[in-house]
């Protein structure tokens, strides 16, 4: 984490057009990035089109037809309540992927604002905020998220809230460091000299220079957020029990180990989306860390 943050904070604040096109060229040459993009795109499309593609209602039970292995009518079989696994897997993409993205979105926005304010104001406010972020980061993500979402009550929204609460400190620390650095630059001094006020300087001159690194860290983190959300859901702290959700479906496997089709496909869904995100992230990291770049 910290090594990633330090790599990210060395990104030139405003990448010029030519850097951008080299980045794109570099990413395109990396075969893993292509595979990653493909995996994520396929799941996004499948999730969006689920109501059109899914052969059955993902919630419709048919007890006389339960626990059937994959066959022509139900290509991924049926689960313990006779629901069509294929339809449930398709609908599952509509829960897990947006949940992971929301965690990153809110975590990035909140963390960036908090970190920017802390770094810009400095003094005891900065000191207090940074000690608080340290406390958050002292706990393993899943343990803290589990404790919070269990207290809020099992529900998709609460799981996302719990994850955002756990997620923002990373961004706050990254952005605070950047703000401290940018604050001493000449153009900020210039803005001050022509009489700009604090909030104006923070939001118009300092913050815009911190956004790119925060977005990069967010991109690297999407896979992780999806994985952690699926973990909460597996523990029964995400969507309600009957929902068509990947983590929930895999957790049914604990009781139905032999009926592999009831849990394996949903698990492959999680794994492939996260792998896709991480392939993209890895390519990005390779590009950003010149020491690891090819041919150097």
């Amino acid at each position: 984490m910290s090594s990633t943050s330090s790599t990210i904070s060395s990104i030139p604040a405003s990448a010029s057009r030519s850097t951008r096109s080299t980045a794109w060229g570099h990413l395109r040459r990396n075969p893993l990035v292509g595979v990653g993009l493909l995996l994520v795109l396929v799941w996004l499309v499948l999730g969006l089109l689920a109501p059109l593609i899914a052969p059955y209602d993902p919630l419709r039970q048919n007890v006389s037809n339960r626990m059937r292995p994959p066959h022509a009518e139900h290509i991924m079989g049926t689960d313990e309540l006779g629901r069509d696994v294929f339809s449930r897997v398709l609908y599952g993409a509509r829960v897990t992927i947006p949940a992971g993205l929301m965690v990153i979105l809110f975590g990035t926005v909140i963390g960036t604002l908090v970190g920017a304010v802390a770094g810009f104001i400095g003094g005891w406010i900065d000191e207090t905020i940074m000690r608080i972020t340290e406390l958050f980061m002292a706990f393993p993500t899943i343990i803290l998220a589990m404790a919070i979402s269990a207290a809020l009550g099992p529900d998709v929204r609460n799981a996302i809230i719990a994850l955002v609460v756990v997620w923002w400190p990373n961004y706050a620390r990254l952005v605070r460091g950047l703000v401290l650095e940018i604050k001493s630059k000449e153009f900020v001094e210039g803005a001050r000299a022509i009489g700009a006020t604090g909030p104006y300087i923070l939001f118009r001159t300092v913050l815009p220079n911190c956004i790119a690194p925060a977005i990069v860290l967010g991109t690297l983190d999407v896979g992780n957020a999806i994985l952690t959300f699926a973990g909460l859901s597996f523990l029964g702290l995400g969507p309600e029990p009957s929902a068509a959700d990947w983590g929930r479906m895999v957790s049914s496997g604990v009781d139905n180990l032999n009926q592999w089709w009831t849990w394996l496909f949903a698990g492959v869904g999680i794994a492939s989306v996260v792998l896709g995100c991480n392939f993209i992230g890895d390519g990005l990291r390779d590009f950003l860390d010149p020491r690891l770049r090819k041919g150097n």
Partner: protein
Amino acid sequence: MSFQRYILRRILFVIPVVFGITFFAFFIANAVPADPVTANLPQSALNNPEIVETFRRRWGLDRPPVERYLTYVSNLVQGDLGTSIKTRRPVIDDIRRFLPATMELATFSIVVGISLGVGLGVVSALYRNTVVDYAARVFSLVGVSFPVFLLALIALSIFYVQLGWTSGLGRLDIVLQTRQPPAVTGWYTIDSLLRGDLRTFQSAVSHLILPSLVLGSYVSGIIARITRSSLLEVLGQDYIRTARSKGLRERFVIRRHAMRNAMIPIVTVIGLSYGSLLSGAVLTESIFAWPGIGRYMYQASTSQDFPAIMGVSILIALIFVGVNFVVDILYYFLDPRIRLT
């Protein structure tokens, strides 16, 4: 600074950390709208105001949060972590009971993780940008991307259900439960050997294999990535070129010159991974019905068992302080230029 003074300073540093953590855990626990009463009493009891009132008074829930926190802290100073609402046992006893199981699993897992991770990372760095490197990198990416609970289920259904090579859930075979080795260390593998009970030892090892492979392969992905990047960075240094141009054998250069200098980030990430394994691998422990800290924390969270949540939080904080301490000491031995401050 002398070594003794350094250690004393680190020990004193624990005190503010523990208070910070208790305050934090208490704040989070009180900031959420959950009620331990509804989480712990059955519906029939909830309808009886007298029982609810007694329950509130018994657990101090009728008093204001500030007073409860102060009571908690003053008990803590006397070494009393309170009593778990769920298990009705002192939290310290619960921790004593569940921590050895987690420690045993974490230690087996980190050994798997280090062997696999460092190995892969080194191979990956030495054969950089070859097929071997790509394969190792994809493997480690798959390792960090694969949900650990899915890996656990796949491993269980193949090696336990289909092939019958290993044992399944729990720490011991059910028939051996009564022959649980007397707790000396709480590690079934060590305790059974101490008593010379080979059957129990075998069963304990057989139960450890799958969960530690699952956790180990997850951790190995992270270790492999750091090993690769750290070794690559060192291999680009001038002193490596010097060593090679002196005509030293490549093996020697890698082992003595490169690996030693690449160790610091690797040791750091191993320490962090071990810390998070020790603070309870909730998902893996719940699948393998492993009676450890992770499962205890899960139970405590879902039943709003404040004393247990607080107790485990303090434990986790202490584990990380301890792991960081050991890592810092290792830095000192790995790189004599580093001063202990």
